[in-house]
C-alpha cells in the first residue's frame, strides 16, 4: 500500500521581524530598551547638544589659522595661528631650525633599531636588545649634541618640545625595565645584604615624589660640585627619572613574580637549571606576561611625569607651551597652546595603551580560556 507522501518542501525563509534587525532595532535594543535607558539616552543627547556645538564652533568654525600674528585672531574662536607659527618649537624646542634634521634622523634610527625585535626568526632578541640599549645612547649623544666632524654643537639646554618628552620617556622606559627586574629579583633574593639594599632603595625612592628627586638633582647637587664643574642638567634629569621609574617597575614585576606558583620554581630547580637560567627561561617570561598592564601603566605614568622636568629648566612639551604662552606676541592664546600640548600627550598615551592591549591579546594573558 503506497502512501503518498507529499514531497518535502521547505517553507520560504521569512526575513526576521523588523523589530529585531536594522537600525531601528539597534536603537531599541541599545538605547531605548527600558524607561531608564530612554531617560539616560535623552539626558546624554541633551548634554552632547549642550557641549559639542560650542566646542566645534570654538575649535573649528570660528577658529583662525591664517595670518602670522595674534591680530588676525578674535576671542570668539580658537587661534590656531599660534600653533602654526610655533609648531617647530612645540616639536623641537629651541633646537636650531637648521639642525632639526638631526632629530628626525635620530627618530628614524630609533624606529629602525626596534624593527629586529619584531622579526620572528631573530633568536637572540635579549642580546640584541641589550646591545641596542648600550649603543643607542652613544649614537644619540653624538648625533643630537654634535660638536664633531663639522656638526654644529647643540647644547642640551636647547633641546625641548615633544622631542625632549619622547627622549626622556624612551630613556626612562628603556632603563626602568632592566633596573626594575634586577631590583625585584634582588628584593626576593635570599642574600641578606642585596635584599636590604634593594628594599632600601625601592622604599626610599617610592617614598619621595618625582618632583622632589628632580628638585634635589637641580638645586642641591650643584652646591656639592667644584666651581665651574657640573653634570649636564639633562643627564641629571635622565638619571633621576630612570631610578625613579625603576623602583616603581620593581614593585610591578615583584607582583608578577609572586603570582607564579611555587611549583614552577621547584620544577626549574629540579631540572638542574641555575638561578639565572630558571629566572630567564621559566619564571620571568611568565611573570612579565602577567603584569603587562601594570608595566604599561608605569610607562604611561612616566610619560606624563616627564613634564615635571620643567622645574629643572628643561623645556619638555608642556614647558615649551608655557614659554609660548609667555611671549608677548601671543599673549592671551594660552588655551590653544595648552590644548595642542595636551593633544600631543594624548596621542602617545593612547598609542601605548592600544599597543599593550594588542600585546595582551597576542600573548593570551587574560584568563579567557
Amino acid at each position, binding site marked *: 500500500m503506497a502512501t503518498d507522501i507529499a514531497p518535502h518542501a521547505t517553507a520560504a525563509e521569512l526575513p526576521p521581524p523588523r523589530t529585531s534587525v536594522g537600525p531601528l532595532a539597534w536603537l531599541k535594543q541599545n538605547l531605548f530598551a527600558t524607561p531608564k535607558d530612554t531617560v539616560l539616552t535623552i539626558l546624554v543627547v541633551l548634554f552632547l547638544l549642550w557641549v559639542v556645538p560650542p566646542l566645534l564652533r570654538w575649535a573649528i568654525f570660528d577658529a583662525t589659522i591664517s595670518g602670522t600674528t595674534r591680530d588676525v585672531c578674535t576671542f570668539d574662536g580658537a587661534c590656531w595661528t599660534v600653533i602654526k607659527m610655533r609648531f617647530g618649537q612645540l616639536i623641537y624646542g629651541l633646537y636650531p631650525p637648521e639642525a632639526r634634521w638631526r632629530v628626525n634622523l635620530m627618530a628614524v634610527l630609533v624606529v629602525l633599531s626596534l624593527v629586529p625585535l619584531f622579526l620572528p626568526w631573530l633568536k637572540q632578541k635579549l642580546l640584541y636588545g641589550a646591545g641596542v640599549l648600550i649603543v643607542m645612547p652613544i649614537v644619540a649623544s653624538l648625533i643630537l649634541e654634535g660638536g664633531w666632524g663639522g656638526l654644529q654643537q647643540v647644547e642640551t639646554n636647547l633641546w625641548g618640545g615633544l622631542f625632549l618628552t619622547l627622549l626622556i620617556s624612551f630613556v626612562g622606559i628603556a632603563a626602568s625595565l632592566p633596573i626594575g627586574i634586577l631590583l625585584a629579583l634582588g628584593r626576593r633574593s635570599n642574600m641578606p645584604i642585596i635584599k636590604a639594599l634593594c628594599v632600601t632603595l625601592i622604599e626610599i625612592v617610592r617614598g619621595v615624589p618625582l618632583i622632589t628627586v628632580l628638585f634635589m638633582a*637641580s638645586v642641591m647637587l650643584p652646591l656639592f660640585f667644584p666651581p665651574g664643574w657640573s653634570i649636564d642638567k639633562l643627564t641629571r634629569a635622565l638619571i633621576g627619572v630612570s631610578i625613579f621609574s625603576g623602583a616603581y617597575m620593581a614593585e610591578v614585576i615583584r607582583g608578577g613574580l609572586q603570582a607564579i606558583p611555587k611549583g614552577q620554581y621547584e620544577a626549574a630547580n629540579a631540572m638542574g637549571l641555575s638561578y639565572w637560567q630558571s629566572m630567564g627561561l621559566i619564571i620571568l617570561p611568565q611573570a612579565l606576561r602577567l603584569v603587562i598592564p601594570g608595566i604599561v601603566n608605569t610607562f604611561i605614568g612616566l610619560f606624563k611625569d616627564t613634564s615635571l622636568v620643567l622645574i629643572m629648566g628643561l623645556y619638555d612639551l608642556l614647558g615649551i607651551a608655557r614659554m609660548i604662552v609667555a611671549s*608677548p606676541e601671543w599673549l592671551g592664546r594660552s588655551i590653544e597652546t595648552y590644548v595642542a600640548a595636551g593633544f600631543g600627550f594624548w596621542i602617545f598615551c593612547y598609542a601605548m595603551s592600544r599597543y599593550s592591549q594588542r600585546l595582551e591579546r597576542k600573548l593570551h594573558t587574560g584568563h579567557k580560556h
Partner: protein
Amino acid sequence: MRLSSLLGACALVALGATAAQAGPTLDAVKQKGFVQCGTNVSGLPGFASVNNENQWSGLDIDLCKAVAVALFNDPNAVKYTPLNAKERFTALQSGQIDILSRNTTNTLSRDTALGLDFPVINYYDGQGFMAKKALGVQSALELDGASVCVQAGTTTELNLADFFRANNMNYQGVVFENNDEVLAAYDSGRCDVLTTDASGLYSTRTKLQNPDDHMVLPEIISKEPLGPAVRHGDNEWADIVRWSFYAMVQAEEFGITSENVEQIAEETQNPDIQRFLGKLDELGAGVGLPNDFAVQIVKQIGNYGESFERNVGMGSTLKIERGLNALWTDGGLQYAMPFR
C-alpha cells in the same frame, strides 16, 4: 647616605652659606668668550621670552646683551640658562651663571644672607590691583569687603593681607596656583579684583576679552625693585654690569638713541657727552672695558627708553607706562651715576 647628604645641603642653604665661590667672574667670562645669563624658565611677557625665531628677547634679556656688547662688542655672545624661582640663587652661587637677570626683587636678605649683589635696578615694579570698570571703584581704598584673586605662595599674597589690615578693611582671598587660573577666575567673575605686580597686571589685561572694560587702580601697595644679581664680593664684575646698564640710562638722558649715536659721537662739542662716548678721557679703562663701550651698547641695544618701549612699553603688546621707570628728569626713578 643619600638622605644625610641632602640634609647637609639643606642645612648649608638654611645657614645662608655661599658654597662654591667661583673665581673672578670677569676673567672666566673673557676666557670662555660669552656671558652666561640666567633667565626666567617659563618666561615673563616683555621681560624674557622666546620669539617665533627661537631668539630670547625682553627687558631682562637686553641687560645681558648690553653686558655682552660692552665686553665682546657682540650682543649674541650670551648663553641663556632658564631657571625657576627656586633654583635661581643656587645657579648663581654655584657658578653656573654669571648674571641672574630674571625679574628678581632686591631685598635685604637676598643682598646679604644669600650672598648676592644687585648692581642696579632695571625695573621698578610694585603690586597693584585691577578691577572691572563696572564695579565703580576708583581707588584700592574703596575695596572693603571685596573678593580678591591672587596667586598662592608669593609675596603678593602677604602684601595683600598687610595692605588690607593696615587700612582696616576686610577682603576675601580667592587663591590659585598659577597666573592663568587667577586670570580665568577673575574673567569669569569669581572675584571683584585681581592683584599681582603692576607689570603683570598690564600683560594680564591684554589677555582679557575686552581690555577696556578693566582698569588698573592707581595704588601701588608694595615695592618690587627688580634687577640683575651677581655674586657678592666680585666687585669688578658687578661694576661691568652696573655701568653697562647706566650707559643705557645715561644715553636716554642725553637724548642719544641707537639711530643718532654715531652722528653725535662725531659731532658733539659737549665735554660731558664726549666723555660718555669715549672721545675724551679714558673712562672705559677704569671699568676694564673698551673706551667706546657706551657707543656700542647704545648702537646695538638702544638706550633704556628704547629698550623699555620695545619690550614692555607702547611699542609692545603690553603697553606699560613708564611711571616709576621714567628718568629722574621726568619724575621717575631711573638715574645714572655721572660718567666722569
